[in-house]
């Protein structure tokens, strides 16, 4: 079995009396796109900064790409790519010089640096701008350059802190194309985000709030967990009778009616719809319309975050 790419044990970080991270246990598997989702101030940036060796945890430990970050930060840094939340490249260097500089401090051999540099610039479509000063680039291009820099040494894990914050949706899609492409080549992703559409695209999601882990699962499982199953909506010839009948069915939970439409929670929507349709038909009720409801991750997010309640006081 492949060891986990990221493994944290009781990771805790305090800033004075504020507990930014509270005994966080995380594991990220090799090859996955792991989303780290939480509201502002939940501890996302603190977590990635610790994972990248930029901050020392107050207690607990983190192993990244097989090395303890506290003990061997340089080994970790050599093997991961990091894209900070705020753009932090040199405005007075050109696109190519920025890449070249970062290539050199990651000790990428010069010819490989050039080859990889060209490849990456093509990937992020900045090859035409290689001689432009980074300071002259647009916001979106700066973000692309930032991604390019984090890739120059061929990292096995990319840690991205809100990589598409402040980026328009079309470009966000383009970024995700890069991520998918790189992921196919074997790069593991750890992505901080508070965009729901972005979170949907992750293989697994960790939901955090107030520095605590609320849930870890795939987006679909997370929804299931929040709702307690899958949601379906029925319109029948007799709503009231349908409701009272379905309330007696074991596999149906949380049946409700609103505006003549019945919504129910079941374990598996796909098999439940035909089963319930014939069940009702036997009892003289016609199902006029049946569909599975797909709750947005946003609903799930809000529901789960609310359940975690107030920030614990220290």
């Amino acid at each position: 079995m492949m060891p986990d790419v990221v493994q944290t044990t009781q990771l805790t970080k305090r800033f004075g009396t504020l507990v930014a991270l509270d005994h966080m246990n995380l594991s990220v598997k090799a090859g996955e796109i792991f989303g780290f989702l939480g509201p502002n101030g939940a501890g996302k940036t603190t977590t990635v900064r610790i994972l990248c060796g930029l901050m020392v945890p107050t207690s607990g430990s983190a192993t990244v790409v097989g090395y303890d970050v506290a003990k061997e930060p340089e080994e970790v840094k050599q093997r991961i790519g990091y894209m900070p939340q705020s753009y932090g490249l040199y405005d007075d260097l050109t696109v190519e010089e920025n890449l070249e500089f970062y290539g050199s401090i990651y000790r990428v051999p010069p010819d490989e640096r050039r080859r990889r540099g060209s490849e990456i610039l093509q990937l992020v479509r900045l090859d035409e701008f290689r001689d432009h000063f980074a300071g002259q680039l647009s916001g979106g291009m700066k973000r692309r350059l930032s991604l390019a820099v984090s890739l120059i040494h061929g990292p096995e894990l990319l840690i991205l802190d809100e990589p598409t914050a402040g980026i328009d949706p079309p470009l966000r899609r383009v970024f995700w194309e890069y991520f998918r492409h790189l992921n196919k080549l074997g790069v593991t992703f750890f992505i901080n985000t508070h965009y729901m559409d972005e979170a949907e695209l992750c293989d697994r999601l960790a939901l955090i709030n107030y520095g605590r882990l609320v849930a870890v699962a795939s987006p679909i499982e997370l929804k299931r967990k929040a709702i307690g199953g899958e949601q379906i909506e029925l319109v029948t010839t007799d709503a009231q009778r349908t409701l009272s009948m379905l309330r007696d069915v074991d596999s149906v939970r949380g049946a409700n009616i609103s505006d003549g439409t019945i919504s129910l929670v079941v374990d598996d929507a796909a098999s439940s719809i035909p089963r319930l349709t014939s069940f009702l038909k036997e009892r003289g009720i016609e199902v006029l319309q049946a569909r599975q409801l797909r709750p947005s991750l946003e609903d799930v997010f809000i529901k789960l975050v609310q359940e975690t309640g107030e920030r614990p006081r220290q």
Partner: protein
Amino acid sequence: MTKKELTHLIRNRRVFALTLLMPLLLMTIVGLAFTGEVRHITTVVVNKDGRPFSQTLVDSLRASETLRIRYYTDDESQAEALIRDGFAKVAIVIPATFDDDVKSSNGIIYVMVDGSDPVSAGAVAPVVQGIALGFTEKLRIQVERLVLYNPSLRYIDFIAPAIVGIFLQIFPMILISMAIAGERERGTIEQLIATPVSGLEILLGKLFVYMGFGFLSATSMLVVAVYVFNLVVRGSVLLIVLFLTVFLTASLSLGTLISAGSKTQMQAVQTVMPMIYIMIFLSGTFYPIEAMSPLVQPISYVLPLTYMIHALRAVIVKGAGLEVVTNDLIFLSTYTVVMLVLAVAVFRKKLE
């Protein structure tokens, strides 16, 4: 509008303290440093006569506020050596025939001054003349001035080495502290320290570049002083380079320390400014330290710039060798090592 601006100013404690304290600090320092009259000039008395008249003269000299007689000898060459090595700035030579000469109303005393300090050198002869006049109401004593090293007492010879010292103290310190604070301000530091490059490498990279810049500035300043203003460099260039290296390392390290406490370039500059004033006025650049109030003298003697300027003046103007400036070199080296170690220690590769 005025109220809002005032609120900004008061809330920004650094600026507030700066606008409130700086004028007080500056005026106090200048007042204490520039006492108006040159006093306490270290003096060696060469009494070749030793008879009563000469003794009385020495007593009157000793009573003077201007002079601080540290050494007595009867050997002129010893006095010259004391001046050359910087232990004394003035030698008052009483010839062997003084007693007889005075009686024949023809007395002469010689005042040998260190031309590398024209301020003291210029002040001393009239004072001695005054003492001599008061000493013999009816007798005439002539005071002859002999200037060593900078015979025309040119101010440029005095000031040029000091300006080099000041420049090397201030600009590399400001530039490196701004460069480091700038990385923090623009957020480039976060991307940089996420790489395996060590903090020492980041620091040394900056040190080397600004060291080179410092040498370039020092060289161009000296070239202008020599070729445009006819400054004569009497001492060893190698020795000058040695001092420049040590001193540059010290001011760059100090700049690094300052940047450690500054989140922005503005903060770095605000921290540096008061230090600059103190350094310029108290380092003996314009005015001899001996003449300053005893209240500020201790500050002068812990400023590395004081030692740098002393050494540069000795080497450039007086042609002094290593043996003369050993103390300066020891102080500066110790200071530099301490600063460098502190700089490396505070330049941590972490975010907090």
